């Protein structure tokens, strides 16, 4: 994986009339991981969307080098379609050469024929993770990646993040839960709250 980076300079986030946080800067390079913690409603998801370039910061700038993969509460897989078809659509958009691997790694190989809407919360999360793996993006932005997952799956996700960062990728995870990332930097969003 080629060198990637994501830079945020002095960003502030406003939702409606409220400023959620301001003065946040970060500089992430290849192989680094970051855990953003904070209570509900403090702006973790908004920060992830700002970093992904989907939301404009109220002030400050964001720049990145390398493709961004976002995992948030929307799996972005058609509820009516079979899981296999839903994943295949994104694998084709992403020109993924070997789309079969991630499904097996996440234990959803048996569910491929099941329409997505019948899957449980945890199974949907695994499916969304398979979509992310197929994307082969250098920068992972994970918004509450462990929500709804059992301990076994949580351990698998932790291992996948380690593998990703070990291979030169960046992982930024926002979660109110602790994530097992020994090397990770920490940002508590409370420190930037207004």
């Amino acid at each position: 994986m080629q060198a990637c980076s994501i830079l945020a300079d002095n960003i502030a986030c406003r939702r409606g009339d409220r400023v959620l946080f301001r003065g946040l800067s970060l500089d992430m390079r290849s192989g680094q991981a970051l855990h953003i913690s904070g209570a509900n409603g403090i702006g973790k998801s908004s920060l992830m969307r700002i970093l992904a370039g989907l939301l404009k910061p109220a002030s400050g700038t964001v720049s990145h080098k390398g493709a961004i993969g976002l995992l948030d509460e929307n799996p972005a897989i058609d509820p009516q379609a079979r899981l296999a078809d839903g994943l295949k659509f994104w694998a084709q958009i992403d020109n993924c050469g070997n789309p079969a691997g991630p499904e097996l790694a996440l234990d959803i190989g048996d569910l491929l024929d099941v329409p997505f809407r019948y899957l449980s919360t945890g199974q949907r999360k695994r499916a969304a993770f398979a979509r992310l793996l197929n994307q082969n993006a250098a920068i992972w932005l994970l918004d509450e990646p462990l929500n709804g997952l059992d301990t076994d799956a949580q351990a698998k996700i932790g291992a996948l993040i380690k593998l990703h960062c070990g291979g030169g990728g960046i992982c930024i995870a926002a979660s109110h839960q602790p994530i097992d990332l020994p090397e990770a930097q920490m940002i508590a969003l409370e420190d930037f709250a207004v």
Partner: protein
Amino acid sequence: MMWRLLKRDLSILMPGGSRSGGRGGAILPLLFFLAVAMLYPFAVGPDAPLLAKTGGGVIWVAALLAAILPLDRLIAPDLELGIFDQLALRGISEESVVAIRMLAHWLSFAPLLLIAAVPASALLGLEYDTTKLVMLGLLAGTPGLAAIGVMIAALTAGLRGGAALSGLLLIPLAVPILIFGAGSLALGDPSGIALCGAISLLLVAITPFAGGAALRSVREN
């Protein structure tokens, strides 16, 4: 990549598409169109000359209403699913997403509508020449209707109660198409259809940009 998007859009919007199931029957607009054509003679009575005179206009109004029916399935569900977010991350512009959605929407209702216009014309007892004008007019006008539909669906996608609002918004915008498309029936010559086609083309050209801007503003706010 564009082909993949079109294929997915068609599987959502086409009758019998693999992803169309829970999003409301995609065949409904067509049945609705035929039902209107069937009910109209019951409402005005069995006066054959009157039916033949007004039948073309009824087909146009039925086509307009049929084009409104799938509006709430066009954009809003994908917005909720986060599909547009993921496409934006991959650097696929909103404009091309909307343009493809517009093409898929047209393909999903217009060809079937044109076919259904034949039995509808027969039900209303239209002359061959009138039927020909109706068909030509619908061919020229339906791309415009599809464009307005996608534009309105994108504009109202982020709103609560957008479905009812979008039907209301579509009707005034469709007036020019109706005036020139259905107006050619009163004149009995196809000159109005050229203008109808011109308006359609204009709408088709504007919609990707208007709809794309609408999607971006929903996302960034």
